[in-house]
């Protein structure tokens, strides 16, 4: 069995994106990009695109929140700018920063050149010395509306939320030395959150809201078969059933779709056509991610395997 070819987003060329008129347009674009969504997600993306509103995607870890933004960018044929949030994220890491070292070097080199101070200042505070971060990059993208993904915005603090809110209302920032940078095309903004912290109301009010839960059994099977084309249908079914059973257990970290796909790929690499006890024990680390969880799953393994649909020959 050859190893699976996973479609990668950067390799894909979306079909020429026409104007997005109806929800069905988005649905077909999503299907072409290999994203298995449903009408709800397509509707949410449709509204976000048509109304030019940011969309807040909440859900547990590993259910495909980041994938949505990537898919949107691929479907619309635009660039994706990604800002990963963390506590203490501030303007210099998210918007821009001057390249101080380069500036100081330039000043040293210019010492003998005879330029006036004003000229020197104009040189060092110009675009070549500006390190742009994702938010500014999204604003400065001129060819078409890019997709801006602000990932895990609940990990940033309240001050960053206020700053983000300000940027999302005007889509312009003012850099003291350069002037006002206005977005030529308003970016499509996707915010994701793991619900670790409650987001501020002002930010939530600005956005449309989409909750993504764990997929149903059929949907998960479909996702596995789309993303791992070489996989047996019965193995996909068994993997999905096992994952569903695991999610009903009391685990520290419940497996998301990302883990399920990793597991499927691992099993294919090991040339397995169905789930047997030894295969599961060997690859448990793909789907279960803590010591306590591994113990619990090992203990419950016989029952879990007994509950699976039978493997086709």
């Amino acid at each position, binding site marked *: 069995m050859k190893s699976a070819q996973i479609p990668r987003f950067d390799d894909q060329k979306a079909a020429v994106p026409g104007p997005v008129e109806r929800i069905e347009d988005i649905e077909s674009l999503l299907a072409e990009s290999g994203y298995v969504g449903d009408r709800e997600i397509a509707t949410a993306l449709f509204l976000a695109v048509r109304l030019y509103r940011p969309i807040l995607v909440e859900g547990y870890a590993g259910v495909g929140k980041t994938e949505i933004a990537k898919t949107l960018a691929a479907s619309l044929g635009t660039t994706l700018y990604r800002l990963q949030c963390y506590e203490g994220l501030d303007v210099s890491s998210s918007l821009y920063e001057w390249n101080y070292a380069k500036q100081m070097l330039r000043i040293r080199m210019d010492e003998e050149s005879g330029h006036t101070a004003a000229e020197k200042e104009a040189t060092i505070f110009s675009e070549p010395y500006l390190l742009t971060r994702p938010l500014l990059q999204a604003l400065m993208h001129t060819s078409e509306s890019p997709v801006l993904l602000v990932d895990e915005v609940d990990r940033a603090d309240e001050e960053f939320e206020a700053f983000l809110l300000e940027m999302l209302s005007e889509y312009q920032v003012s850099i003291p030395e350069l002037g006002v940078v206005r977005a030529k095309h308003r970016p499509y903004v996707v915010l994701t959150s793991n619900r670790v912290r409650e987001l501020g109301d002002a930010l939530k*009010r600005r956005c449309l809201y989409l909750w993504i839960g764990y997929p149903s059994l059929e949907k998960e099977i479909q996702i596995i078969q789309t993303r791992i084309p070489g996989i047996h249908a019965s193995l996909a079914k068994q993997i999905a059933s096992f994952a569903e059973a695991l*999610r009903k257990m009391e685990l520290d970290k419940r497996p998301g779709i990302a883990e399920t796909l990793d597991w499927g790929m691992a099993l294919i690499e090991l040339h397995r056509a169905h789930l047997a006890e030894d295969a599961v024990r060997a690859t448990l680390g793909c789907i279960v991610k803590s010591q306590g969880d591994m113990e619990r799953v090992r203990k419950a393994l016989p029952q879990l395997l007994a509950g699976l649909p039978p493997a086709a020959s």
Partner: protein
Amino acid sequence: MNSARACDDLVLAVVQFCRLLRLRGVRLHSDAAQTALAALREIDVTERNDFRTTLRIALVQRPEDLAPFAYFFNLFWGTGRPAGEANRAADSSVNGLSDAERLGEATPEAEAGAEEALSSDAHSRITPGREAAHLPDDSPIRKMKAAMVGGGRREGEVPGLAASEAAELERLARELAPILATRRSRRWMRTPRGSSIDLRKALRSSLRYGGTPIELPRRARRMTRTRLVIFCDVSRSMDEDAAFFLRFAAAVLRRLWKVEVFLFATDIVRVTPLWLRESWSTLLLRVPDCGGGTRIGACLARFLEEHERSLVGGDTIVMIFSDGLDAGDPMVLDLALERLGRRSRAICWLNPLSHLEGYEPTAQGMAVALRHLDVFAPAHDLASLSELVRDLRVLRAA
């Protein structure tokens, strides 16, 4: 003309639907109706599923509201189908219902439950005598509590402390206050004694000297003020423990900036402005205790409803002082603590029973609460308080 009429009717209907949702406890933002209408303009409103999805995307802000939304949508806009089928359709359409306990399946039982939870009558239903019912009759704890409390509420006296004890209390409060008062944020601020160099300012000031960074301004991580919210259980069983703890809290409170104090038994009362002015007995009289057992979960839920946004933020430390004998539904307590934990920095639960030998936190309320807590300690006398101070110092360093 007809379509204009129909348009107006739709606008009116959407606005009324938003009002219904707000009335029934679903959190909507202030311009929800406008967002919904702008969104509806983009879709074909005759498609029922799209209509519902669009309204949900525009109106709902939290996953807890998904199930009530589904229920009220069917109620308001009609189901368009025979009743049983409609409920099942609502189930399958709510995204992510595989996690049924968290989101609350819109099954008929849960609908009744949602109805009950949303109505304000739920708080007032009291079953007498259930507080002690959780413990088996011959449990040593029950006997000890019986011996300690001696029946009946003591009116008026704060148990007197000896002078040395009072001094010790003040000392502990002095130690505790700075620990709780501030925390190190991850943001930077300029300070002359900071640990790292502020390159931006250095560059700016170097321009004055022709590009040579002669001044090296420094920066360090900022300190922010934390807020402390104290919940104290003043029901019958907690009487003297509460009094002791509150004396300590008063000593701490005098030294902190932002402290809120709430007392609860069967309902919760904010006593912060009255705290240092009124006597103990007057304060106790303000707290409704209809007998029949403490309802910790319901009180916390009530607090969250009214004060969540204003009082609990990323810097808040929550202290709950209670013996954990909860006569209410443990699920309510679980949800309330989860919500509180998501909003605040840390939850400390001080349980005066936990120092008793052989005590295991198996009472329903306590067992459910344990997984949300960052600190779990007794606070019944001075020794335990100094241990608490130590625990909190560790917590702050984390």
